[in-house]
């Protein structure tokens, strides 16, 4: 076992915790269902959102130019970064040129992808993640395990112990209200001291040159309303053409993500705060390469709601860290191997192909189908281990001819019941590790059909 299967096995070894994780995410999925059911035009919204994204991707360069032009007219400084390294250097230069040593951040998966925090910290800048879940994992020295609920894998007692150690809460205290209140005080001091705020971007609007940031806690609003400098970092795919497109996506995003009708704060930035500066950093980092791949480009439509994770039977039982990538779950299993097929080649197999992810995706990415297609791509590129390729080859040969299929069935029915258990359930049968084979029937379906009086 290697890759996702091995790390998932470590997570699943703690059965009680794996069950708890599964239930916590399923509860979020149930809340999402209730919200979706309350909107009669839900399916039409999904169709429209998918079409808007497809259209935008077909003219992305034009829309980016329009966005840049309008943003500049609004007094925003626009920067472009080909990759994560350039993105980090741009952000660092903005901060260093202005003598900023204390930065508050709200959630940005892009900056996680680019590893911005360690880059800035190495260069002497204090970086404080201000979303409560992100602050928890930052204090624990871990990346987020889920893109919307970064600390979903941690129990309240663990967070209580962490806070006792790092921010001086009472020993043994684990009440969420108490811990959240302590974090509020701790982070309020950070907000008051910050010289700049950095946010991600949920949507960028070409026709107005503005960006929209969604949070429940108000941390992006605190971080951009007090200090004079705001840096917003976005992937090229965040564009929508028109302001009225926001209505479509905002109706879908929070309902799909957490089962809320909309986030508590949906903030539109179209220029700097009075007397301050606003910077947009537009990042490619492999996205143009994904756009060029016909089969997989729809993964660029993703609005990072996390619904595919909450519903995925594999994610729920294996945890976000088992994927080893910034974005886990079904969508991450498509994005990661496009970046590095050797490192993340096991992820497209971390799916039962049940299709639940595709059913809940608010922008209708055909996730399970694309995962299936990616498996074939990986086999063609020989990234899949030889044993798996060999086994599939043999299976294909046996099942591809009726005589060999019949012979194999006959042999199995005769031989398997006589074999000692250790031979059937040996290491060559990973399928049987947690499952029992069904009892072998004495006769094949074909035999039974022949005996049936017509």
């Amino acid at each position: 076992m290697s890759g996702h299967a091995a790390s998932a096995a470590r997570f699943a070894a703690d059965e009680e915790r794996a069950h708890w994780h599964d239930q916590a995410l399923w509860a979020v999925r149930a809340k999402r269902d209730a919200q979706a059911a309350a909107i009669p035009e839900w399916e039409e919204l999904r169709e429209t959102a998918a079409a808007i994204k497809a259209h935008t991707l077909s003219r992305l360069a034009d829309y980016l130019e329009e966005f840049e032009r309008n943003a500049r007219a609004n007094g925003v400084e626009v920067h472009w970064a080909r990759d994560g390294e350039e993105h980090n250097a741009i952000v660092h230069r903005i901060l260093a040129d202005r003598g900023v040593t204390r930065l508050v951040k709200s959630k940005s998966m892009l900056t996680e992808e680019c590893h911005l925090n360690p880059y800035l910290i190495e260069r002497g800048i204090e970086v404080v993640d201000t979303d409560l879940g992100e602050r928890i994992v930052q204090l624990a020295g871990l990346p987020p395990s889920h893109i919307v609920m970064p600390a979903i894998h941690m129990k309240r007692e663990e967070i209580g112990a962490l806070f006792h150690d790092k921010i001086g809460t009472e020993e043994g205290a684990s009440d969420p209200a108490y811990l959240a209140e302590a974090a509020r005080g701790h982070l309020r001091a950070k907000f008051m001291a910050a010289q700049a705020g950095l946010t991600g971007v949920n949507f960028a609007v070409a026709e107005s040159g503005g960006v929209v940031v969604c949070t429940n806690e108000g941390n992006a609003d605190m971080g951009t309303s007090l200090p004079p400098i705001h840096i917003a970092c976005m992937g090229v795919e965040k564009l929508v053409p028109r302001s009225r497109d926001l209505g479509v996506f905002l109706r879908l995003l929070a309902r799909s993500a957490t089962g809320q009708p909309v986030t508590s704060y949906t903030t539109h930035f179209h220029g700097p705060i009075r007397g301050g500066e606003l910077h947009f950093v537009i990042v490619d980092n492999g996205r143009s390469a994904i756009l060029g791949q016909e089969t997989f480009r729809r993964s660029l439509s993703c609005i990072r709601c996390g619904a595919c994770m909450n519903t995925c039977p594999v994610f729920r039982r294996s945890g976000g860290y088992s994927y080893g990538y910034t974005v886990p779950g079904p969508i991450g299993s498509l994005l990661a191997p496009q970046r590095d097929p050797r490192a993340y080649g096991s992820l497209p197999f971390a799916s039962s192909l049940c299709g639940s992810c595709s059913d809940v995706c608010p922008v209708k990415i055909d996730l399970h189908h694309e995962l299936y297609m990616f498996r074939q791509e990986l086999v063609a590129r020989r990234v899949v281990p030889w044993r798996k390729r060999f086994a599939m080859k043999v299976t294909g040969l046996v099942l591809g001819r009726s005589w060999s299929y019949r012979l194999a069935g006959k042999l199995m029915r005769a031989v398997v019941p006589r074999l000692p258990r250790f031979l059937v359930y040996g290491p060559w049968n990973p399928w049987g590790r947690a499952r029992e084979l069904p009892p072998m029937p004495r006769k094949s379906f074909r035999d039974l059909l022949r005996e049936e009086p017509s």
Partner: protein
Amino acid sequence: MSSRDAILAALRKAAPPPSPLPEPPAGIVYPDPVAQFAAMVAAVGGACIRVPDLGALNVELTKLPAYARARRTVSLVAGAGSSNLDLAALGDPHELEGLDVAVVPGELGVAENAAVWVPGSSLGPHRAVFVIAEHLVLVVRADRIVHTMHQAYERIRFERPGFGVFLCGPSKTADIEQALVIGAHGPRSCTVFVLG
């Protein structure tokens, strides 16, 4: 080639064939959008109070415990509540720390999700008031409540500098074991007065 030009060239080269841009769908229409709005405000952890006029609003406002015990208040709604803090005199938004209550006008209310649109031009010289206050009071006119976000965006105009925010209930988090906690970073309560 600059990074900008390189990225744009790569995106043009990789662009899929053209596909049409659809219009947003017609949204749900509620029989009583004000009642729907009030129900949604409660569902997202806020409180909604309907008042016929500003006189009645002020009576209800003084009944709110958060307002009654507030030491520092700001009102950006003429005739609703009172200010004892001169925003124009503050040199720096950090001086707003410790603000107990902010009364803020909403331009639109959205029935489907309890969101209230607050443009930056309504927030005075320091936009931080809406998030730094310990308690938030929003005032929306009943005839400014729309059914859906689609209708809201038809009415919103982004004038420069064009800051604006949809506020939906108090600040909240569920990042510790999915347990809902009200008052994460921003206001600990959100009361929405529907006027008229």
